[in-house]
């Protein structure tokens, strides 16, 4: 039987799908019975998911402009 502490150690491997079949079964058995660990796992997953929803940084407009300018020189050099 996995302990709560072991669940918190394995949660990323679980969420990433890296657990062996046996560990996966043991993991599910524990969280099936333990409300706190269920909550913990849910929170870790929500955190990872939320990070993916953070806005992507914006390209500074000057940088875009410079890239276009460079593109034009590249194009000219190509002939």
């Amino acid at each position, binding site marked *: 039987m996995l*302990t709560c502490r072991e669940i918190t150690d394995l949660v*990323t491997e679980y969420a990433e799908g890296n657990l062996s079949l046996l560990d996966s079964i043991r993991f599910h058995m524990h969280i099936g019975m333990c409300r706190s660990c269920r909550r913990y796992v849910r929170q870790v997953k929500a955190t*990872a998911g939320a990070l993916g929803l*953070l806005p992507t940084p914006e390209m500074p*407009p000057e*940088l*875009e402009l*410079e890239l276009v300018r*460079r593109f034009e020189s590249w194009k000219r050099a190509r002939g």
Partner: protein
Amino acid sequence: MDHHVEGKWRSCAKPENIERLGMRSATKTAGDVAGAPVAGLDDSELVRRVRAGDRTAFTGLVRRHGGALLRLARVFVHDEAVAEEVVQDAWMAVLEGLDGFEGRSSFKTWLYRILANRARTRATREGRTVPFSALAGVDDGAPALDPERFDDAGAWRDPPVGWTDETPERLALAAETRAVMESAVAALPPAQRAVLVLRDEDGLEAEEICNLLDITVTNQRVLLHRARTHVRQAIEAHMRGGSRC
């Protein structure tokens, strides 16, 4: 390549010039005439058009990947101006190498590898960073979560409290939790931050992250685990009443 560009492009970055070239902020693309025709095209089609000298296709690629590329550059170099230069170098290398790009990997993979190589070269040359493979071993000591939260049998002594909302959408949308996450990520040790940004913010596969950062699979997993644990903990501390983490 010309070497006098610095001053020149700083001076031409006035709003009216930006308008004239059809270059506007990536967030304002709605109704943007220049951006619209390429929005629905995939990368390989845009690459094909760039080869033929199509500027709109080039700006389309830059807008699609530019922000994420900048975020990747920041993983390698701390200085913002240097990060922008690395991005610029990378795009130039893309143009120079475009004819050799055979599409065996996706454009994004190719682009990220070019950036990572440029950034690494740059960082090494300036002696600013050590390789991630070296950093990866360093913060490997302490357990990710405070052992005091468990009793001797490994059961919760201090269990997690419920959050007002435990969905990714609400966490990311609420300005407060978003700020908490962003500062928690910024405070992570570099190798942890690198892996977290690439895996969770950018959504790259683990294998690709190992390639880009030149770290082992085991390192990647440990770093991701520690990073996620820290960020969850920062949110928990916030939910518990603003105590600092």
